């Protein structure tokens, strides 16, 4: 009784619905009492710590994994010398131990077979699985060319498989992290400043005086050092301006929250430019010295007054002026944050351009408290024979989008459907560390592509939904059980971090470097993998860098002094930007020449019809995409997502908090599972919101299966960015069903 009451309080306090979860109380650690605790203090001294960097998200914070005498991983603590985490991991990093302990992990290789007329996965040995993969890949290589084998990847395993693909002669590589996430901002900022934003973003938040977040919800996304620096900025009295239709955590920390009408951000930014220029608040000296196209921009925004923007954005003209003045007052220590997941409406590169232009007008690029000049260390590559030159690569597959900077996953998917791209047909997929069914919108197209493939291999640590489509599933061990490439961080100062296995791989799982080598050897390119253990690669690289494996084993992270010059612009020197003009391009001739708008314009996007609500989605601090939903520690903090509904909307439909509802989108797509309603004033009247990454189909995910809704399955309408191929996903509308539409009579 007491237990469930606590559980209830914890959950309702988090606003995650009212029904107590039925997690069995697992006593993983045996008996303990406070008397034992005194003993444990001594035990603690015998902990062994192993250097690693986190793989629960892409921030890759350096950390120490603590193992006890029994060889169990007990806790993971941030590395004090690391600029990604400053010794403090986020909940996911701290809970990374759950990734290792998860008893639902993939345990052996699996091969799809037909048994008694039914398709099923059969457990296999590594030799069986690897031989099958090599023979299938060889056939495809001989018939269609190695280029027809594509790699779709995310995170550390991707690097090793990229090497494998390049070794066999393919560069048909894509990752949802580009066209389904941050691609538009990389292209938009490169067009303006000549350089990607990159990761971690070179935002000088710790010294900023004004931080502007446009739909970016720092604090709910736990991009660790940014969260920490935002907290410092709050301490320093910085002004925070948040533009978001939802009252995000960041909005609650802001002096100015602009609850904008969804889809109208560019109008607001054009009006901000108008105010900065009309009121002479922009950085004239900076613009004169470093930028081109100011006159065209001035002319372009002259009619985009705050009054004009008011009718579009619902943000009052005086609030637009006030916030523009606040940004100017703090400039150049003002950051218009580029955001991260920025594929919203299909004009996302242009929205990123608007952000970049605002930063230019405020003189914040290359200034303290704005954006610093990042630097990283180039890693020496382990010697290997030259890669064969592919006849075509991701570039040709993505050619429809002239400014795509990386493989456009959706185009690789399209090229997998016969007749869609006959020149560059894709026949096999190697999928590593990315759960496509929760990353790629338009499930119908995705399934059509998978259906058309000759062969599909999925490498993961968990039986994620995407594994269900594979011909062969390979169990990768977790980051705590493997070596990986050196993390070379792009930051204020360059640094490297090492990942060393804290324990041996559990079950029959293997590291991705080993998998890549095994497939490579079987395909006759063993000379590309001239090492028995990846440790040899690390030893070679670290020696080349003037340090050693032994040193990194002791310190985990090594910071280096900058070599590329000062962190900020030296005002007395001429600085050449890496754009074609050598200047910041407010007006983009490159875009103009390609037939796109040289300066951002506002385009009206579709709005929900009566009875439908825009489907917005975002992050929760304790989860990374869909990959952590089953992690016992993190699932304990949040075991399902909820549908955020405004009380007025709830009253109209007659909803109660905790009630289960189903969703149907504008294309009649139904949610697979129900979701519990959370009635809250934190969301507006025309949109509903849910945390991304729930609603798992696979029953093998015992904690995550059937809990909540997968927002991605309701995104069937995609607005593609014509500049770089990003899939805009914020233009889908749902209606709320209180009866189970799947119930058969």
């Amino acid at each position: 009784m007491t237990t469930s009451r606590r559980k209830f309080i914890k959950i309702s306090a988090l606003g995650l619905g009212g029904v107590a979860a039925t997690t069995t109380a697992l006593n993983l650690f045996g008996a303990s009492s406070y008397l034992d605790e005194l003993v444990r203090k001594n035990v603690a001294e015998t902990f062994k710590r192993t250097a690693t960097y986190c793989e629960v998200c892409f921030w890759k914070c350096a950390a120490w994994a603590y193992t006890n005498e029994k060889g169990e991983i007990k806790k993971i603590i941030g590395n004090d010398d690391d600029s990604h985490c400053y010794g403090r991991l986020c909940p996911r990093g701290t809970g990374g131990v759950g990734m290792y302990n998860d008893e639902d992990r993939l345990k052996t290789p699996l091969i799809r077979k037909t048994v008694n007329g039914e398709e099923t996965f059969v457990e296999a040995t590594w030799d069986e699985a690897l031989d099958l993969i090599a023979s299938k890949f060889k056939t495809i290589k001989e018939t269609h060319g190695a280029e027809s084998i594509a790699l779709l990847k995310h995170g550390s395993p991707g690097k090793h498989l990229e090497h494998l693909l390049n070794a066999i002669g393919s560069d048909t590589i894509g990752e949802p992290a580009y066209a389904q996430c941050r691609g538009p901002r990389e292209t938009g900022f490169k067009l303006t400043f000549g350089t990607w934003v990159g990761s971690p973003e070179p935002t000088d938040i710790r010294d900023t005086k004004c931080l502007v977040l446009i739909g970016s919800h720092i604090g709910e996304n736990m991009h660790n050092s940014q969260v920490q620096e935002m907290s410092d900025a709050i301490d320093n009295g910085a002004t925070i301006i948040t533009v978001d239709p939802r009252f995000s955590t960041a909005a609650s920390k802001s002096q100015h929250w602009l609850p904008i009408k969804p889809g109208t951000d560019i109008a607001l930014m054009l009006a901000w430019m108008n105010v900065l220029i009309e009121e002479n608040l922009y950085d004239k000296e900076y613009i004169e010295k470093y930028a081109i196209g100011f006159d065209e921009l001035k002319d372009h925004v002259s009619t985009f007054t705050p009054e004009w923007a008011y009718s579009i954005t619902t943000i009052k003209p005086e609030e637009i002026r006030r916030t523009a003045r606040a940004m100017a007052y703090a400039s150049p220590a003002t950051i218009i944050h580029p955001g991260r997941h920025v594929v919203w409406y299909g004009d996302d590169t242009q929205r990123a351009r608007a952000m970049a232009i605002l930063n230019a007008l405020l003189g914040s690029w290359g200034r303290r408290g704005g954006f610093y000049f990042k630097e990283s260390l180039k890693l020496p590559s382990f010697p290997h024979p030259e890669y064969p030159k592919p006849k075509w690569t991701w570039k040709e597959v993505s050619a429809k989008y002239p400014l795509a900077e990386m493989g456009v996953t959706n185009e690789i998917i399209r090229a997998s459907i016969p007749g869609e791209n006959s020149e560059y047909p894709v026949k096999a997929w190697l999928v590593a560390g990315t759960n496509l069914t929760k990353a790629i919108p338009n499930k119908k197209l995705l399934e059509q592509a998978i259906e058309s493939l000759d062969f599909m291999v999925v490498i993961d640590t968990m039986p994620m939904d995407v594994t269900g489509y594979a011909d062969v599933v390979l169990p990768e061990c977790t980051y705590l059980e493997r070596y990986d490439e050196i993390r070379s961080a792009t930051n204020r100062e360059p640094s490297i971090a090492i990942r060393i296995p804290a324990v041996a791989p559990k079950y029959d799982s293997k590291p991705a470097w080993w998998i890549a080598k095994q497939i490579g050897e079987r395909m006759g390119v063993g000379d590309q993998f001239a090492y028995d253990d990846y440790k040899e690669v690390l030893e070679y690289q670290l020696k080349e860098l003037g340090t050693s494996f032994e040193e990194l084993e002791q310190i985990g992270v090594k910071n280096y002094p900058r070599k590329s010059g000062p962190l900020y612009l030296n005002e007395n020197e001429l600085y050449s930007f890496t754009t074609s003009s050598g200047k910041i391009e407010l007006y983009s001739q490159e875009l103009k020449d390609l037939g796109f708008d040289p300066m951002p314009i506002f385009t009206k996007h579709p709005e929900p019809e009566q009875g439908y609500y825009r489907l917005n989605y975002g992050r929760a601090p304790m989860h990374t995409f869909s990959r952590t939903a089953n992690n016992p520690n993190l699932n304990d903090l949040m075991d399902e997502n909820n549908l955020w509904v405004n009380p007025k909307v709830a009253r109209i439909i007659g909803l109660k908090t905790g009630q289960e509802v189903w969703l149907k989108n504008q294309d009649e797509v139904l949610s697979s599972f129900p979701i519990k309603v959370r009635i809250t004033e934190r969301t507006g009247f025309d949109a509903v919101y849910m945390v991304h990454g729930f609603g798992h189909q696979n029953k093998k995910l015992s904690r995550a299966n059937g809990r909540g809704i997968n927002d991605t399955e309701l995104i069937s309408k995609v607005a593609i960015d014509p500049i770089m191929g990003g899939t805009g996903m914020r233009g889908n509308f749902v209606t709320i069903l209180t009866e189970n539409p799947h119930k058969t009579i």
Partner: protein
Amino acid sequence: MRYAMVIDTLKCVGCSDCVVACQTENNVPIGYCRDWITEVVNGAYPNVELELKSERCNHCDTAPCVRCCPTGASHIVDGGIVLVTGNDCIGCGACIESCPYDARFQHPDGYVDKCTFCHHRLKDGQLPACVSVCPTKCMYFGDLDNPNSEVSQLLKNRKHKTLAPEAGTNPHVFYLI
């Protein structure tokens, strides 16, 4: 020596890192927690306020849990920290009912469990696990008897509150507001 915790609600983002860090540090079984996050929303859209904060045992001066414990398992040690001696606890649950903060729970091993301010770490000169891990650095810990300590200074200079002051427990977790 009087230990106290000060938590800045203006910085807390409610990420729950304090909860996981406590669980892994103190072997708290999954499904239970010694600290937790609360979220309070006031106002109506778009005039909304949000308060996020990390809660736990308040290590009260006049602790009802200690007063009602029939075996003396619940007791106060140096520095004002309220502890439970697991081996002396009969699991009667009186303390759980008496706590105005709902900070105690029945451990599956039969005794009552709760936050210890990471007593075992303090002896090593380390901060409680939750404080040491918090990514927003919104949690402070120290000695209220020392007027120059960070916690004393924060309480001197910043507006703050305690939870359920009407219960008369004289709690030692403070919230900056």
